[in-house]
């Protein structure tokens, strides 16, 4: 178990370093002088000189990367030029909002996707399977920002049941918070639910065709118990690992969902930063996303190891 952990960590670290290099290199894409571009609207030569000095822009690229990466390691992701605040502070401020949204969305995705996948695997080839596959295809194909707009149109504009926007912290009012989050969470969870349904279905079909499921049936175990006690726990490992990979999709989707519902999270921070040409913030958000993603995959590996009795005891 410890060896397994160590091996996974050893793979994750170079990945993260390389990802940071790629993110750093994005600057090079900026047209024209980097210092001018980084200052955005600001044209004050003093500010430009300050930026040039702060980011060591006269030094060669590897040296600049070293300075930048050193800062990142110390938690210094640079300064938001527009908001005059450290990027790390902005991220810490916005992260909980996105985390709440992501967790709620994952909950929606699991609550819809897993039972639907189990049902369609058990009823393979029957009407329930066809319907579940159709729903999954809908979930995969509908752009989530459009779904968001449609839901606002129905529940906020027409029916007036839910607020179209206006995030409230759960510490202020949990009910207002949930009222504001229910539509974004559903919209974001919708696409992931489709993917989870497909993963669950495939994993369950594999397990339901296995010899030990036949043994269980040969023992006279009821179909319900075969599905839930014998098959589902063994299908859980691929569902967990593949589910964790969907977290990237979740973060991608959050950018748009937050935009549609004006949720002041990570994604909104990134989009606003893009429009204000606040590139340090963009880089900060992306590197945090990559780090979160890598950490989650690591966690999923560990979790599936914990579920697997063979690895648990080894």
């Amino acid at each position, binding site marked *: 178990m410890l060896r397994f952990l160590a091996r996974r960590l050893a*793979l994750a670290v*170079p*990945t*993260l*370093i*390389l*990802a940071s*290099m*790629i*993110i750093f290199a*994005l*600057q090079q*894409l*900026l*047209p024209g002088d980097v210092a001018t571009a980084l200052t955005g609207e600001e044209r004050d030569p003093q500010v430009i000189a300050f930026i040039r000095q702060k980011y060591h822009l006269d030094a060669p690229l590897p040296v600049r990367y070293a300075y930048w990466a050193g800062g990142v390691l110390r938690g210094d992701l640079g300064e938001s030029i527009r908001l005059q605040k450290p990027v790390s502070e902005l991220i810490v401020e916005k992260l909980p909002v996105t985390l709440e949204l992501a967790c709620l969305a994952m909950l929606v995705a699991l609550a819809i996707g897993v039972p639907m996948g189990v049902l369609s695997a058990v009823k393979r080839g029957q009407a329930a399977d066809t319907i579940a596959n159709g729903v999954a*295809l*809908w979930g*995969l*194909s*509908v*752009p989530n*920002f*459009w779904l968001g*707009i*449609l839901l*606002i*149109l129905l529940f906020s*504009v027409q029916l007036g049941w839910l607020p179209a926007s206006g995030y409230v912290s759960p510490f202020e009012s949990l009910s207002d918070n949930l009222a504001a989050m229910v539509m974004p969470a559903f919209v974001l969870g919708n696409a992931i639910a489709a993917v989870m349904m*497909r993963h669950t*279905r*495939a994993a369950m*079909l594999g397990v339901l*065709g296995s010899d030990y499921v*036949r043994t269980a049936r040969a023992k006279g175990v009821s179909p319900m118990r075969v599905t839930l006690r014998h098959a589902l726990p063994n299908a859980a490992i691929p569902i967990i690992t593949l589910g964790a990979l969907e977290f*990237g*999709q979740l*973060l*991608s*989707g959050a*950018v*748009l969902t937050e*935009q*549609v519902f004006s949720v002041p999270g990570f994604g909104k921070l*990134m*989009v606003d930063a*893009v*429009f204000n040409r606040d*590139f340090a913030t*963009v*880089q900060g*958000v*992306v590197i945090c*996303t*990559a780090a979160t*993603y*890598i950490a989650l995959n690591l966690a999923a590996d560990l979790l599936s190891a914990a579920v697997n009795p063979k690895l648990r005891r080894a």
Partner: protein
Amino acid sequence: MSTGTPIAEPAGLAAPAGTPALIQEPGTLAAFWRRLRARKSAVAGLVIVGLLILMAVSAPWIAPYDPTATDWANVRGHPSLAHPFGGDEVGRDVLSRIIFGARASLGAGLVSVALAVSLGLPLGLLAGYAGGWIDGVISRLTDALLAIPFLILAIALAAFLGPSLVNAMIAIGLSATSTFIRLTRAQVRAVAAEEFVEAARAMGNPPWRIARVHILPNIVPAILVQATLTIAAAIIAEASLSFLGLGQQPPEPSWGAMLNTAKNFMDQAPWMAIWPGLSIFLAVLAFNLFGDGLRDALDPRQRT
């Protein structure tokens, strides 16, 4: 599932074990077409894709109005005989903009995936076939790229490149490249381990010849399926970038950009939101349907 005997057993008898009659012989092109046509949803997908491409190509002839021409009489105009899909916030004809918008969406889908394949395929071939440190470097790079979620990377790239449809295509294509590197590499490694490739190598064929003659044709199906499904993802990505203002710039029409403005007029002109969204949905659905059908038809064993 087409097993007659659920139990595999070792060849205990002198006669060949297994049930050859039950195994589906690998498809020739004709057999592939037969299997594809048997899947109604795949055919439907292909037909919709065809119609959408036709619409995009013939847009100047079939669109009733100039997609950028404003008409003050038609500002947020209700759907009518003259403007079946209504008018937008400056009175442009929504139907004409939907028709022309297909160009941005389909174009972005096709161009970005073409870019991703033309970068990813050679790199994946190289990594899978050369092995060693070359494989190590390419694989780590792929891991790193995959660690940044697709759309986030595309947004970041588009942000640094500057907002335009071409830059959006480049951003989406680059973001999708890692998927193709990884897929190609995995496929190459699987095929290279097969006996006929071993045999070709033993007979002294040069590596590039083995790659071209023996490996490439065997990995094309998987790449084709992935490409089709990635077009669907790329169309959503282009719509997303345009929705955020990072893709097609106004007044040129794009479904995603249309939704962006529609959002602000939801209570007065809901049709502005309905049609572009429906168009994106239909295009993405069509490519997904076709891609799923293609996968099933190409590999009958891996049927979902």
